[in-house]
């Protein structure tokens, strides 16, 4: 199945170059499909939701739409979780839902050719390869290509939906 998806990705990549939004979490750089991104914002104070998991920071009102804010740094168990003027929220549109994800910073918008995208290795860790669409190799940099749809609609993230329904 993963092999099939990889092949699909590769086939898509062969078709045309894709643009990715590169953001950083800790020391690593991750990339998501730019077409999933709706907006990039600075981090603002959010309304906390009681009894929610700690990686769900709360909700915020984005031009009349209530948007849940998820901190991927907490989700990925990073050590330094700080909120400052440089902290950025990427608002993504996933499955007709709008979700804000908190990252350390947004560094770039990059265009990757299909040969620059390698298939992701498989190993059973928390960030399973299900959420990885591949690894982008660009000169010395290694970008982790995240399938944001799968990540946010996974069972772990199902809460997102339920909280967003609130």
């Amino acid at each position, binding site marked *: 199945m993963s092999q099939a998806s990889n092949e699909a990705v590769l086939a898509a990549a062969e078709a045309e170059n894709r643009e990715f*939004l590169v953001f950083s979490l800790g020391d690593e750089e991750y990339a998501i499909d730019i077409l999933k991104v709706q*907006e*990039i*914002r600075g981090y603002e104070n959010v309304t906390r939701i009681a009894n929610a998991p700690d990686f769900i920071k709360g909700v915020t009102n984005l031009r009349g739409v209530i948007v849940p804010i998820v901190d991927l740094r907490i989700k990925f168990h990073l050590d330094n979780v700080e909120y400052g003027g440089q902290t950025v929220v990427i608002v993504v549109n996933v499955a007709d839902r709008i979700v804000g994800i908190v990252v350390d910073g947004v560094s770039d*918008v990059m265009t990757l050719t299909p040969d620059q995208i390698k298939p992701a290795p498989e190993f059973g860790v928390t960030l399973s390869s299900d959420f990885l669409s591949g690894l982008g190799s660009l000169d010395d940099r290694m970008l982790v290509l995240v399938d944001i749809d799968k990540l946010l609609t996974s069972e772990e993230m199902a809460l997102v939906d339920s909280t967003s329904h609130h």
Partner: protein
Amino acid sequence: MVVFGEKRVTQLVRQLMSNMTVRLSWGLVLATFSVWVLIACGIGLYALHHGANIVQSASDPQAQQLAFQAFASQIRWVLIGVVVMTLLTVAVVIWGVSANVLRPLDRLVGYFERMAQGDLSQQIRSPGNNEIGKLYTAMAHMQGSLSETVGVVRRSGTTIFERSQHIASGNNDLSSRTEQQASSLEETASSMEQLASTVSHNADNARQASQLAGDATLTARRSGEEVSHIVDTMQEISASSHQVADIITLIDNIAFQTNILALNASVEAARAGEHGKGFAVVAQEVRSLASRSASAAKEIRTLIDASLGKVDVGTQRVNQAGQTMQDLVAAVQRVSDIMDEIASASEEQSNGIGQVNQAVAQMDQVVQQNAQLVQQAARSANELESEAARLREAVERFQVAGESPAQAPTRMTTTATIASVPTRSAQPVAKPLTTSQDEWEAF
């Protein structure tokens, strides 16, 4: 044998006569003569009585004449015998007087004359127990007590002489010591002058040092004020640096916002697909500008941070310098106080030295008086010595038993040598006082 007996008899008689008192001998003489007169008178009365008997008994003139003649011749012989006996008695009395009275008196006169010549060493033997003998005994007593007195006087003269010698040598020592004292006093006075000049020099230096310390205090205070100005300036620099840092933060924020806006523009351009290609390029340029301004702001922030840290360090150092300056001011103030104390102490020392100088002058006066007294004492000792010598000469005339007369001249020579000592001892006394010759002449 007979000669020896006669001599013995004469000696006994002499002894007897010597032991006979004048009253007894004169009584004996008078009694003897009275006996002879009585015998003569008795014979005369008996002759008268016997003649009358003859006249009455014998009527015969012849017989009377014969009887009377016989009796007269008998009486005549008897009278002749009485006369002879009387003459004998007179001769005995004359001999006795010359032997018992006149010759002892002659010897007595001889003794007196030798005593008058100073010979007290005669051996006076009393001839007997009578008045003449008592005279001898009394004379022997007189000679004894005289010679005792002379001995006492001689010993006292010697003692006086030796003591006056001691006094003279003591005067010598005393005068040399007085001289030493006078020279020591002179040295003390000159040392005191040196000390006084040193102390006044010291006081001047202390005063100058005090002034310098005061100047140093003022300078240090001015430096402290400068340092506080520097501190103020440093704080102003720090404040403006903080303002710059704030502005930099603002610029940084603007760059961040610009970056986000450019990213959003990129996202929009990507959505627009082919139509957004040009827009994407513009957004890329804007992003690169934003990142450049962000990195420039970062560099400026780094520089400002570094300069802020340096300003902080400088402020700290300047504060330390200000503290050090205050310490310096306090220390210099203390130095100034101490210098003032030294100056006042030097003045007190100067006053004390003045008092010491007065005391030294008084001591000098006293030493001069002492020298006068020593000279007087030397003269008195001199006179005492010559008096003792005269006394000795007077006593040397007497010759006492148990002392040879040859000792006297040697004593006299020692007297002569010692007599020169006071004049020698008197000279050093006058020597240190040559400066005050007028006083001495007046004295």
